[in-house]
């Protein structure tokens, strides 16, 4: 490992520094909303019960599903990238179905899925992602946006885990959080052509406030 590449572990990184370290460059940093606090916490504001938290998480998954579908259709990625994106879209669909099943068990109906790119953009902004779906040109840019989307999702699941009461839901949220982290790792590797040093940029995902003071 080159000395200049070494990333000390446990250092008091800022979120922006974390982003630059992982993806590099102003383009990537531009996808991150200019907010100092993890945005997902705001997205879950007002959700106290397990049912309310499930509803919020499902709303996020629905927006992410829309984003994957939109980007796959619009950016015409190379076959290997398209294959990965379709696989991850499949994972997001599984997440949404499981959350929806849990909602149904609690006698609640799933929220209506978003019907426009601008509605999805609003969710992404609330997750701390600045990118606009309609402004993504090229698969490399799309990959970078999706990395931020996955990190935003990871933040939402982390914040839900703080509040969820049912241990079975804590387990489910932890499994999905880990999957989102794994997907972000693959997306970074695709964007940076196999650079595993960037693909796992920190010892924690998300970079929780307690460790990023």
């Amino acid at each position: 490992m080159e000395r200049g590449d070494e990333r000390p572990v446990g250092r008091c990184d800022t979120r922006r520094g974390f982003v630059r370290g992982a993806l590099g460059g102003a383009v990537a940093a531009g996808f991150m909303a200019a907010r100092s606090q993890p945005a997902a916490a705001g997205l879950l504001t007002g959700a106290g019960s397990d049912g309310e938290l499930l509803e919020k998480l499902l709303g996020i998954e629905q927006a992410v599903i829309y984003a994957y579908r939109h980007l796959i259709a619009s950016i015409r990625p190379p076959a290997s990238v398209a294959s990965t994106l379709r696989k991850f879209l499949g994972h997001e669909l599984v997440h949404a179905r499981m959350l929806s099943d849990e909602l149904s068990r609690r006698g609640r109906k799933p929220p209506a899925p978003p019907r426009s790119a601008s509605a999805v953009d609003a969710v992404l902004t609330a997750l701390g992602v600045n990118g606009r779906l309609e402004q993504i040109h090229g698969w490399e840019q799309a990959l970078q946006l999706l990395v931020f989307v996955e990190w935003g999702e990871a933040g939402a699941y982390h914040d839900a885990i703080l509040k969820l009461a049912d241990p079975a839901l804590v387990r489910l949220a932890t499994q999905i959080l880990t999957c989102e982290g794994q997907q972000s790792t693959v997306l970074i590797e695709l964007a940076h052509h196999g650079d595993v040093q960037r693909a796992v940029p920190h010892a924690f995902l998300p970079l929780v406030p307690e460790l990023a003071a």
Partner: protein
Amino acid sequence: MVGDSTRVSRRDLLAVSGAAGVALALAGCTDVTTSTNPTLSKLALKANPSDVPILNGLLEIEYLLAYAYTAATPLLNRADSRTTRQFLHYELAHITVLRTLIDSAHGKAAAQRSTYPLGHRQGARELLSLLHRIKAESIRRYLSAIPRLSHGGVRGLTASIMANEGQQLTVLRKSLGLEPVPAALATGAE
């Protein structure tokens, strides 16, 4: 900071007790110590005493991971050893956080063993397979432990560690030519 010339030996790992000491011995690095790291010294979470046995169970698997990475790193090729050295640092950070949480509950942190049975592995693929197997076991341990933790903040912090373990598992799987993210839910069975 660790450069290419730095050798991380099992002797180094075992020569000191306590994760902070391990980190110092490994890297001459002050970043992961509770005494000098401003991040961890600010860790305000207070774990409940009832959670100490669960956290110690996680600490045990982190010791094993750190030991395995330490043992494997010198035997891997340059690219793989760069990766495992980075991951070793992450495990040391996890150890430090878990010990800090146990301390916060006035509990006694489990001590690392003098040795861990890793068997005799021949070649890079067998070593990576071993790391993969232990990493998958760590996912199973975290998945079993996290829902049983009583404190939401501690659940969140340990979940953020498990997510990182999942990321590492993905890299190891890719190195082994396996599907990097084989399922929509991480189980540790993959």
